[in-house]
């Protein structure tokens, strides 16, 4: 056995691409909520793109791997850092995870929320800059750009807040004020990201070599 589920979290299910073409017999097709992330995760570990995977929502599960296992984590999630903290993954996994998470969160946002095209380009630009920086072995710069990419990709959460506050103060928003509030959310996320990037580290940074070694 490769994997044991210690705690399933909230609504963790096994999902593949779904069974389509049977609704006329009363069958719900099911399937992954984010088919792009499913295909991406499968491709990364060498599966068929519609193979079954674990779909994880809201709270992550506790999983125990009984042997060395190749896994891919995709979709709009922020699980990468948590996995690192618990010693469940190393940078070889976390780096691509962060990149994929931010990219597919943008794909997810495009499909689910229909972001304005310009915003999507900015977020992708930030992610791509992250890749350029890491190729020059500039880890501090890479981290910063990845965080800016995240900040824009995960703007939807803050938008709920700004739209809610805006509506409480000024009533139902017009087309213009709505755009303004949406924009404000990305502004807030970027400001927080900048603050985190520029904040001096609380304890001395580990020597760069310790961080780099798994990547060699």
């Amino acid at each position, binding site marked *: 056995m490769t994997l044991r589920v210690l705690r399933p979290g909230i609504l963790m299910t096994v999902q593949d691409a779904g069974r389509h073409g049977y609704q*006329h017999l*009363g069958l719900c097709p099911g399937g992954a909520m984010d088919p792009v992330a499913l295909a991406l995760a499968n491709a990364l570990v060498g599966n068929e793109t519609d193979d079954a995977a674990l779909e994880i929502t809201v709270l992550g599960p506790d999983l125990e791997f009984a042997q060395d296992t190749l896994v891919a984590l995709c979709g709009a999630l922020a699980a990468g850092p948590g996995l690192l903290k618990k010693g469940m993954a190393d940078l070889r996994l976390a780096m691509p995870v962060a990149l994929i998470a931010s990219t597919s969160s943008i794909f997810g946002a495009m499909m689910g929320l229909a972001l304005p095209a310009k915003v999507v380009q900015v977020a992708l630009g930030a992610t791509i800059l992250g890749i350029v920086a890491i190729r020059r072995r500039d880890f501090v710069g890479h981290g910063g750009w990845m965080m800016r990419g995240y900040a824009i990709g995960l703007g939807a959460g803050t938008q709920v807040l700004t739209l809610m506050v805006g509506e409480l103060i000024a009533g139902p928003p017009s087309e213009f004020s709505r755009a303004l509030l949406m924009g404000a959310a990305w502004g807030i996320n970027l400001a927080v990201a900048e603050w985190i990037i520029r904040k001096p580290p609380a304890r001395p940074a580990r020597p760069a070599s310790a961080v780099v070694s798994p990547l060699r």
Partner: protein
Amino acid sequence: MAAYVEFSRVLDLEVNEFVQRLAAAIHARGEPWIRDVVPALGGLALHFDPDFEGAISDVAAELVERCLKEGLPDAENVGREVEVPVCYDRVFAPDLEEVAAKTGLSPEEVVARHAAGEYRVLMMGFAPGHAYMGGLDAKLAVPRRATPRPVVPAGSVAIASGQTVIYPYAIAGGWNIIGRTPLAVFDARREQPSLFAAGDRVRFRAISGAEFEAFGR
């Protein structure tokens, strides 16, 4: 992504028959961008491939008009004939007495009228393989039970609202149970997983308890 083409908001067996003929015509065209054609009581749903580009409501309307212009298959050529053995013994029919009391018929009369009916599957839904069948004898019109049962045995044959159903699994149900079939209504391992599909013509054949027990052995 789906379009729902509605013809009637009330249950009308003639409209439903038309829906089945239209669904068969659309299904036979095998359009690659349609994943599923799902007939309902008074309309049908067309499920589109999510990659399909175009206004699906316009495309759906166009498709329906084209089918109507080219002509629909006759009702006799839509669906299959399905015969279902049913044991109406009391052990399988917890609501038979109550239905008899409500309709003013004897339990034997209820069974005879139910078994003599010619039914048509109006739509599938609620659970995999669960068929809503129209054509119930007007004398057997009873409402659903006031309190549904949390679990109904698989194969239970039940009536309510002028229709009859067979529960494919042990699931919750509120219809009046008057018999049970030994057949597996739905089995995902079969070539044809569902015993029924919308448009099928269904007859029941009364069997004894001994025949029920011997079934599938």
